[in-house]
């Protein structure tokens, strides 16, 4: 049996009007996004099950750096190591 490693995990995110995260609930605590360090998009496999993700590399108020993305097809937020 093959189990993919680093599968996306759901995360609660509050975004501003432009769709940029401002608060995240990470490790059971709400944290403020201090800075967005990087942004990129992945659009792939449109010919079968489309993957369309908007990634944000975030620096949180306590200094932790995490990567989250918004699945643009389902409008859900996920956390993933990149």
């Amino acid at each position, binding site marked *: *049996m*093959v*189990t*993919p*490693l*680093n*599968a*996306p995990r759901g995360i609660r995110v509050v975004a501003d009007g432009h769709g940029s995260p401002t608060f995240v609930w990470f490790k059971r605590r709400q944290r403020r996004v201090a800075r967005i360090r990087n942004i990129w998009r*992945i659009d*792939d496999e449109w010919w079968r099950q489309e*993957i369309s993700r908007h990634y944000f590399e975030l620096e949180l108020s306590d200094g932790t750096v995490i990567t989250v993305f918004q699945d643009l097809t389902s409008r859900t937020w996920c956390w*993933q*190591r*990149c």
Partner: protein
Amino acid sequence: MTILCLIIPHLPVQWELKRHPELAQAALVIGGFPHERKTVFDCSEKATASGICLGMTLRQASHRCPDTISLPVDEVGYNRAFDEVLDILNQFSPFVEADGLGRAFLDISGTEHLFGPAENLAGQISNEVIHKTGLQSQIGIASNKFVASIAASLASTRSLILTSGQERSFLQSLPIELLPIAPEATTWLKRLGLRTMGQVADLPINALDSQLGQDGLMAHRLAKGIDKRMVKPRPRPDVLEQSLSFDHPLVDMDALLAAIGSLLGKLVPTLRSRYQVCHEIRLRFCFDNGRAWQDTVALKTPLDSEQEMLSILKRHLETTSLPEGLAEVQLALARLGREFGRQSSLSTGTRSRQHEALQRLERDMEHKFGQSPLKRVVELDPDSRIPERRLALMDAHLNG
């Protein structure tokens, strides 16, 4: 220091009588056949009573006693029998020294806590030797090697034990022939009218030194019961050996490799328990027609791994075919040495050992839980833009 000396009197004769009990009443001479130009190596008490002594030519011996039965010397057999005795002695003390064929010294200082007083220890050793080898022994215990060896040679059925301080009085009346010095020195002492060790001990040391040199000094020291020589433990045998006999002669190479694997399975744990590695593997094949074939494999890297040894032997034997049915295979791990650090390879290094350990773990877990939870990380598409497509977990299946 407490030294025990064990003597197996007439070991060759005892050994031959064990093999040929029908010769118990004969005047037995060991050295060769009467027509051979050889000398008497050992002889039985009956032969000695007939006037035969060690070093006499066999021809002279047969003239002296025409009824003697002569046997050729089997030094390998005698040495093997004595090695068995030494192995028994090693159970009582780690300090065992073989002093020629049939005589051994043990340093038994401090062993009274394990085996009780010296009398008990001597009794235990004597019983063990006769029980396991069938050889009669004489035991002497004293504070040094010389006095212990004299005590052993004078002991009969019971062991002779001397406490510290009794040495000089014990040696006082014994003949000077018992001193281990050159025969010329003994003759010179006799010419002076000296007959006992007590008389030698009373001489001024300067006189003995000026007349006999080192022999004189040694004679004086030993006659006074002073001997500072230590027991030098014998080196451990450098070979681990096992053999396997087959009821039906083997003709198949795979079966031979399985047999070799089983022998390695017996030997390697012993090797590891001694924290040693093996530099050489010796194979001996005995065929059903009585012929034998011997092979030695020198290892580039000293090993203590059963798996690695087996794979080397497999490669070594892969071009070989068995000419006849194989009746017995003997495997010896030789040139054993200490385990030492080795340079790990940058790529693989100790991975084979780790792999073996993991294989064992997986087998154990499968045995215990029905399946192994061990997984391995595999690269699916390392360059994928989608992170979860890059790596995955798969069942390990380390045992194939």
